[in-house]
């Protein structure tokens, strides 16, 4: 935990991706590189623009999308008040950031690894694909509802194999789930890894399929967060009994410091 820090970083730029009905709703937010010693894809940071008044008290959690020697990149979608204000960030603005927080995804260089991303859940896989020592062992299936140009899909697709699936009609979803079913089964047979990030209904589907095929699968969970450091108990998820030894109290674990990445068989997504 010793490289957790709380620092103010300058915005380098905040580049809109794609458009939805003429509006910019997706942004790659590039910040100065914090002085972190190390980080793992799947970890996240808490972000609070310095210009925010106290009318909105909490920082917002975002997956680390990429880290280079020069910058820290986050990728976010406008969904509410906070992200709407973040869309107005300009180069030179100050942003308070603490992290890297939580546990990242498992990296097993030689295991065939399936990346399942739903919508903005693609963000952590950018860093995963780019930092993986053997990217030819990775494969991604990406389900999305907004135009593909809204997402950082290209930057992953240039490194690893995979497909994108636009969900317009209900049949599209059915077909996507069938595809995931097959892919998970394939990876389970080879004792591969399945990693998923996306909205909770998507994670529930992946969890169900992973358990069905006894795949080794990790899910990155999303919940409302206030502190990001395990203190407020606002972000918990129900967990299996075998996690209790881990310092987890009374059947519920904080997503921020015990996750956001959990093994699929250890979490219960029924609540929230």
């Amino acid at each position, binding site marked *: 935990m010793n490289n957790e820090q709380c620092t103010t970083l300058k915005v380098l730029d905040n580049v809109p991706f794609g458009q939805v009905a003429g509006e910019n709703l997706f942004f790659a937010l590039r910040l100065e590189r914090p002085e972190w010693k190390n980080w793992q894809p799947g970890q996240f940071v808490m972000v609070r623009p310095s210009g925010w008044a106290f009318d909105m008290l909490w920082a917002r959690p975002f997956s680390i999308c990429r880290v280079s020697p020069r910058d820290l990149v986050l990728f976010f979608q406008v969904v509410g008040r906070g992200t709407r204000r973040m869309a107005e960030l300009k180069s030179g603005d100050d942003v308070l950031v603490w992290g890297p927080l939580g546990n990242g995804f498992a990296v097993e260089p030689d295991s065939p690894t399936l990346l399942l991303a739903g919508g903005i859940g693609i963000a952590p896989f950018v860093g995963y694909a780019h930092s993986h020592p053997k990217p030819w062992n990775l494969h991604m299936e990406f389900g999305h509802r907004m135009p593909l140009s809204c997402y950082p899909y290209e930057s992953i697709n240039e490194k690893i194999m995979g497909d994108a699936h636009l969900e317009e009609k209900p049949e599209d979803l059915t077909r996507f789930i069938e595809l995931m079913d097959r892919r998970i089964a394939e990876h389970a047979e080879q004792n591969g890894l399945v990693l998923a990030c996306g909205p909770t209904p998507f994670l529930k589907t992946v969890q169900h399929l992973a358990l069905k095929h006894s795949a080794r699968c990790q899910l990155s969970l999303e919940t409302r967060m206030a502190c*990001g450091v395990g203190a*407020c108990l606002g972000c918990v998820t129900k967990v299996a009994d075998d996690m209790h030894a881990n310092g987890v109290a009374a059947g519920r674990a904080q997503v921020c410091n015990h996750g956001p990445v959990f093994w699929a068989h250890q979490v219960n997504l029924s609540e929230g």
Partner: protein
Amino acid sequence: MDMRLNLPGLPDFGFKNPILTASGTFGYGVEFAPFGDLTALGGIVVKGLSLKPRPGNPMPRIAETPCGMLNAVGLQNSGVESFLKEKLPKLPWRELPVIANIYACDPGEFAELTSILAREQGIAAVEVNISCPNVKEGGILFGQDAAQAARVTEAVKRVAGDKPVIIKLSPNVTDIAAIAKAVEDAGADMISCINTLSGMGVDIRSRKPLLANVIGGLSGPAIKPVALRCVWQVCRAVTIPVIGIGGITSAEDVLEFMLVGAHAVQVGTANFIRPDFSFRLVQEFEQLVEKMGITDLEEFRGSLKL
């Protein structure tokens, strides 16, 4: 400058500065160790402890509100024994007061908890959260009834040994001064106030409450005016030391609570604005006190001109 204040009636007890962290907002302290020096704080009040492990409330448990937040975390914790074994040893309790916040559903349970804590060298004081329903007597909150609040205070005091007992008051009452007086008379060594205001939020699209528990506690800067009023009323009603809590987000706020009579304060929700908040606040407070030319906090305390 010396930031230590005398605590009337407690010659052997003190805080090296008046800034403590509030229960439920600072975890068990250890979560914040990466962000600052815990021993710089005036004290740490840990998340509410119960006798047995408790799962707390279902999710969602928190929601943001204008200049505040709602929480219905409930008392999720792995029980007092687990705290003493797993968490307390990790805290620098020799260098700063670690205060155990306790929660129970009847006076006997409160007493049992207290007698366990009274034996622990690492525990500096016990803070009693009386914002909980008395399950045996129809579910009215201990903190909303002067007689019940007094009974809990007595039960806890009887077994607290030399640990100071702090009673934490709820603002959701018609007359907070009456409750304060009752717990003072029942032997409380200090009072802390306020706990959260009873509030609620809903989502008009899903038509569901924002919290699974429907009702939750409102905290943060939004409630500061209510907290100041309560602390002022309580300080006028009792002679024991009072710890002010509610919406503190600046060094000015700390002095505001002291101006109306508080001996110390606890910082709650502000710890979520940034995890180094309380550490920075201690520094800012020292700077402000100096800049304002206050040379004696004891003199400043309670010096409101009416």
